[in-house]
């Protein structure tokens, strides 16, 4: 047997296991039948057409876009603050504070969801809305933004800002004219990743949505109606493609950033 054949078989099996379920989405999305089973019934695009006619779905898409965009912007702004502070300054309890910022990355989402629900509704007496979903999503997206932006900020030579100040800029001017352009690829990358995570997120959104569901919550509701499942498959296909595109764009910007600052690529998400 040729050397490495076993490992190659393992790698192929691994990829099949990982992506077969995802590959089933487009297969059934184009299948002309309401039952999700083989053999296939023939090719159709009617499920995609039907997507256009469901008003509640459009509302859910709008809700999700609002939540995802707001979350992306908030997480990235918080991420910039935290990443710059951690890369530039020493302060008491720095390790602990940064650790706490990163904890939601590993905290079970169901815990975050329940805890936020209790706090927002019982303790603060607020009613659930899209903003409460934004709150929960910002909490879990900020660590990702911090991680991406820390890499950008740490890759910068400290003396770049000093050089700008030396050449007559104020500290603020140096940040906007030198630091910000150099971390822009990181910012774009953080925005896209946060957007994607928020768009896909279900558990926290499920706990914190009021009368306006986000897309994943809406889809969950639709699974109760068997005749709607092919439509859900069609929507899933669109979401998978969208996620892949966004992730690719994010990685493109991250790599461009690495090249522009002349730093060594230490690996990213792709």
């Amino acid at each position: 047997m040729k050397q490495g054949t076993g490992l190659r078989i393992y790698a192929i099996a691994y990829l099949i296991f990982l992506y077969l379920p995802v590959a089933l989405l487009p297969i059934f999305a184009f299948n002309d039948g309401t039952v999700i089973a083989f053999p296939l019934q023939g090719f159709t695009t009617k499920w995609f057409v039907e997507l256009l006619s469901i008003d509640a779905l459009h509302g859910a898409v709008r809700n999700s876009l609002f939540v995802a965009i707001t979350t992306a912007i908030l997480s990235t702004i918080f991420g910039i603050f935290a990443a710059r502070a951690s890369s530039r300054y020493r302060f008491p309890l720095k390790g602990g504070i940064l650790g706490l910022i990163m904890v939601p990355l590993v905290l079970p989402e169901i815990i975050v969801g329940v805890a936020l629900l209790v706090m927002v509704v019982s303790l603060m007496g607020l009613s659930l809305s899209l903003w409460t979903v934004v709150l929960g999503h910002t909490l879990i997206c900020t660590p990702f933004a911090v991680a991406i932006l820390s890499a950008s900020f740490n890759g910068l030579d400290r003396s770049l800002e000093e050089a700008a100040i030396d050449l007559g800029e104020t500290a603020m001017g140096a940040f906007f004219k030198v630091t910000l352009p150099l971390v822009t690829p990181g910012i774009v990358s953080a925005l896209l990743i946060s957007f994607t995570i928020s768009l896909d997120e279900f558990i926290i959104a499920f706990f914190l949505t009021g009368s306006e569901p986000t897309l994943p919550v809406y889809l969950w509701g639709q699974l109760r109606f068997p005749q709607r499942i092919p439509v859900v498959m069609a929507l899933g296909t669109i979401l998978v493609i969208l996620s892949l595109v966004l992730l690719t764009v994010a990685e493109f910007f991250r790599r461009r950033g690495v090249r522009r600052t002349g730093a060594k690529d230490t690996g990213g998400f792709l």
Partner: protein
Amino acid sequence: MKDPLIVLDQVQKYYDDYHALRGISCEIGKGEFFSLLGPSGCGKTTLLRTIAGFEDVSSGRVLIGGRDMADVPANLRPTNMVFQSYAIFPHLDVAGNVGFGLRKRSDLSAEQKKAKVIEALEMVGLAGYGKRPAHALSGGQRQRVALARALVLEPEVLLLDEPLSALDKKMREQMQTELRRLQRHVGITFILVTHDQEEALIMSDRIAVMFEGEIAQLAAPQTLYRRPASRKVAEFIGVMNFLSATSTVSGDSVALDIAGLGKVTLSTEQCPGGAPSGAAVAGLRPETLSVVIDDATATPSHSVTGKVVEVVYYGDMTYYEVALDGAQKPVTISMKNLPGRRVLEIGDTAKVAWDPSALVIFAA
């Protein structure tokens, strides 16, 4: 000094408990090439950053052009800096880097700014490189861009933080003479931080040797080399042989009995750190000693005999280690390899000629 450009007055700097600068006082003249020389951690970079305005002084004053810099932030000081890493802005091309500091100058038109950038690039030998992106520059080119970027603003003082340490040996030697020429051409004050004593000697008008946050000696290169104020300075700059001695001071003269060389009487001027009484150390540079080889006519006024214990041949020079009769340690002697001059071998007996006027006497 008449009318100094920079006055440092009892400058102290603490980082928490660490005393980085311990009362630095000196004056730096207009148009002077001034070097801060010392081992790493001696405070030379801290002092430079204090002048630039990147570090506050804990106490004392920094004056530039007679003005106290205490409340003047770095961006408003008449200083510009060439950073050790060069700090070339990676998102800008060469012209963008050089023109960075000019952007805020409202008194100049866009054409004037462009002309200044071109002129600055010509000055550092990078004419035509304006459109080159920053990441496509070699180390030497980055350094020239950093120089042009600072000089285009016509500062009163150019601060250079180990600007040559990242270059290879050949490039470094070329840049040393080039920097010196550039400084004479623009005529502004250069303050160079370096740990390379040779570099400081080659380039500077005056050198401040720093150890542990203090200036150990401030002098012109020749004085520093010939009359180092302490054994520590002598050891840091070049190579020096140290021979133990006993000294008796009487008025302006010092009577010495030097191990290996014998008795000699010198003027107290040869004791730059003050004439010691009793135990002393006599210092001699390797080139002030010579080995008399196959020369029957030579009658040196002062000579001793010794045994060659090591020979290192460099092509243009030969370095001998010679054990002098009566000295504990062999002395190092450098000899030019003139045509026809033989190179001695290990074990040969050597006649060593020396010059009393080249001696420097330190306290033991």
